[in-house]
């Protein structure tokens, strides 16, 4: 059941540089009937072809988000699969992994199938992360094999971590046998002790309950021990502390099959932002002080952290206007991720553009097994490969020299809870091409 048809017609991306298997090359890209057919200079566009201007831009594999909260079913006033997919396309994403903490949560084949069906016609490909336990309650294993049969590759109770070490170990073991990946939101709730911000100077001054870095690190350590012992593959979601990065670095050195992601807000914002008690800065894991931000950037640069994942978490204005401790955690991320990563990692930290595409596209595609066409029964196309003839045209064209200003109300998400309101951004997504269809042209969503 291939639900993802390639778009008919010819598209030419003209000008700029292209990220090919050989690195960045000045070239045009030709797409015919959804597949890249040529990457070469001075292409003559055939009659009737759509020509996309990419002068001064970089064309590369479309981004893949490992961590998107689409809110449907349950909180459609904050985001729907369609609105989230539009935001994703505008952010340069050609595939996203929908997190399971919806209502009802994604712990049954019925609900997972519904989400996949709704995502089949949107402007980004929607994959699903299934719940690891029934109701995300951390007790009884969800029907992992049944969901895996639908192509679910990642399993997590994200929103919370599996608190019981015995359950986590059993789940990790069970996943191993199925060839799917256990993913953890690392937060030991007992240590976190109800903290709503990072425990430190700011939580002390503001009188807000804090959660220490060890709440995250304790679960990272536990999971790495379990994965090492079982020989299991594990993916750690939104790492945010010095200790987590150190633990993962050491585990990788020992050969443990761990991958890790970090969110843009954890390498661009610190907990000083909460001084305003503006709940748009409330997120879980919480924003942390400078040294943690620096460690995340170092981890992204040196390969300890494999992927940038948005943890895109839409919330309605009403809920974000609640007192800080009562407001839900989470912030929008899909439409600002590339700009933030480009500015912070490439411009400020000197990361190579090739590495940035690895973090935003190639590595997350591999982690979610969205890198091979037909590997999924639902027929997702292949993402994350560098641009070369023969690949499905899931592409993004970014303009590093563009400047724009964030306005929550101008974002495609139904919600407006960006922590970057009014901030001037470096670099933008100009075009997004999904299976050969230009779904975003010159920063405008086409549908």
């Amino acid at each position: 059941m291939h639900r993802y048809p390639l778009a008919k017609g010819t598209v030419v991306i003209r000008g700029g540089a292209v990220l090919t298997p050989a690195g960045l090359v000045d070239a045009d890209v030709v797409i015919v009937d959804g597949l890249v057919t040529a990457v070469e200079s001075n292409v003559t566009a055939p009659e009737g072809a759509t020509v996309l201007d990419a002068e001064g831009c970089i064309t590369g594999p479309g981004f893949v988000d490992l961590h998107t909260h689409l809110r449907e079913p349950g909180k459609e006033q904050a985001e729907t699969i369609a609105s989230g997919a539009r935001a994703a396309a505008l952010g340069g994403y050609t595939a996203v992994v929908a997190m399971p903490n919806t209502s009802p949560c994604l712990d049954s084949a019925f609900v997972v199938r519904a989400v996949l069906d709704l995502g089949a016609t949107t402007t980004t490909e929607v994959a699903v992360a299934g719940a690891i336990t029934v109701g995300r309650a951390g007790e009884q294993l969800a029907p992992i094999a049944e969901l895996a049969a639908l192509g679910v590759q990642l399993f997590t109770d994200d929103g919370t971590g599996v608190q019981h070490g015995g359950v986590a170990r059993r789940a990790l073991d069970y996943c191993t046998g199925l060839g799917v990946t256990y993913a953890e939101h690392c937060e030991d709730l007992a240590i976190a002790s109800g903290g709503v911000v990072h425990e430190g100077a700011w939580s002390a001054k503001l009188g807000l309950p804090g959660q220490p870095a060890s709440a995250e690190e304790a679960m990272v350590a536990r999971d790495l021990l379990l994965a090492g012992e079982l020989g299991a593959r594990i993916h750690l979601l939104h790492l945010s502390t010095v200790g987590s990065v150190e633990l993962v670095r050491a585990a990788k050195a020992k050969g443990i099959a761990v991958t890790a992601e970090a969110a843009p807000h954890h390498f661009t914002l610190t907990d000083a932002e909460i001084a305003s008690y503006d709940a748009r800065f409330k997120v879980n894991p919480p924003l942390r002080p400078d040294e943690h931000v620096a460690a995340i950037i170092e981890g992204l640069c040196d390969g300890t952290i494999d992927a940038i994942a948005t943890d895109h978490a839409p919330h309605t204005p009403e809920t974000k206007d609640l007192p800080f401790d009562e407001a839900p955690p989470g912030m929008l991320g899909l439409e600002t991720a590339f700009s933030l990563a480009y500015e912070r990692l490439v411009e400020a930290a000197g990361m190579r553009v090739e590495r940035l595409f690895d973090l935003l596209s190639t590595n997350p595609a591999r982690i979610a097994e969205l890198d091979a066409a037909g590997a999924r029964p639902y027929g997702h196309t292949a993402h994350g490969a560098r641009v070369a003839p023969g690949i499905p045209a899931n592409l993004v064209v970014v303009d590093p020299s563009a400047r724009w200003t964030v306005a929550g109300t101008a974002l495609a998400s139904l919600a407006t809870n960006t922590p970057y309101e009014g901030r001037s951004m470096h670099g933008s997504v100009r075009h997004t091409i999904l299976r050969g269809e230009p779904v975003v042209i010159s920063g405008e969503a086409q549908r």
Partner: protein
Amino acid sequence: MIGPHLLSIADLGHDGIVQVLNVAESFAEVEKRTMKKVPALKGKVIATMFFEESTRTRLSFETAAKRLSADVLSLSVATSSVKKGESLKDTLKTIEALGIDAVIIRHRSSGAPLQAARFLDDIHVVNAGDGWHEHPSQGLLDAFTVRQAWAAAAGVDPATTGSSLFQGKKIVIVGDIAHSRVARSEVLAYTALGAEVTLVAPATLLPPSVEGWGVTVAHRLDPVLADADLISVLRLQAERGSGECVPSLREFTETFGMTEARAERLKDGALITHPGPMVRGVEIASAVADDPRCLVTTQVHNGVAVRMAALYLLLTGGNAVLDHSEANRDA
């Protein structure tokens, strides 16, 4: 110089605090008259919104507002439809429509009055205690109370002393500092006025960091007692003493309580304050609470004059004429 809001003692700074204390001295004089009202805020409307009930603090603020001749709207939101999860913004927009000049907010969530100040246009917001964050009027009335006591001991008029009586004074704040809004306001007030502040508590009741607070921290009370000019005893909430932060109330009293034995070891002239309500026998022994060195009833009494001063300065900028004789004529 003061305002538009009183959300934190930090909004005032040294000069603002001294100004409030001085104006409060003149209102304390008014209080001694038979006609306690002044017309300073005649025609102004002040609302109290206590999302968390505190009859004492609310009555103190409302009395202060009435003595300034303001009209008072008392919105008892703690018992009304406003429940956890209901939009603070909506509730505030409703009262904004009533045409008020100032709103006095008590909220269980840290920061709620600051958020309120963002949601409202042209309305002064007074923080009457927010979560663990601050209780600025309490910090001010505590500073007012001890300045008055030290001035009386020195035989001087407190209003002429500025912050001089705080210089070099050793102030110990003991008890549940981590979860105390009073502690944060007192620290800001006392350090701004030039006192040396020591926080004393078990590590579990100290804030996770005191970076930038300008205080020293001690984990034992006894070594700092004999030197202290003022002991500020904070309330310990019972649940924090039942294994959450300290093993038992008994152990807390033994190690950090202001017992009779400890009160005996205080130096001459040392004072004790408590923001109330006291849990006698836990953080303070009953006999110590009733000791003349313990200023707890004076604190409650002074609350009105200090809150009058704060409201008066916020709403008039200190420019309205404080004509007491006119007040008497008004009668």
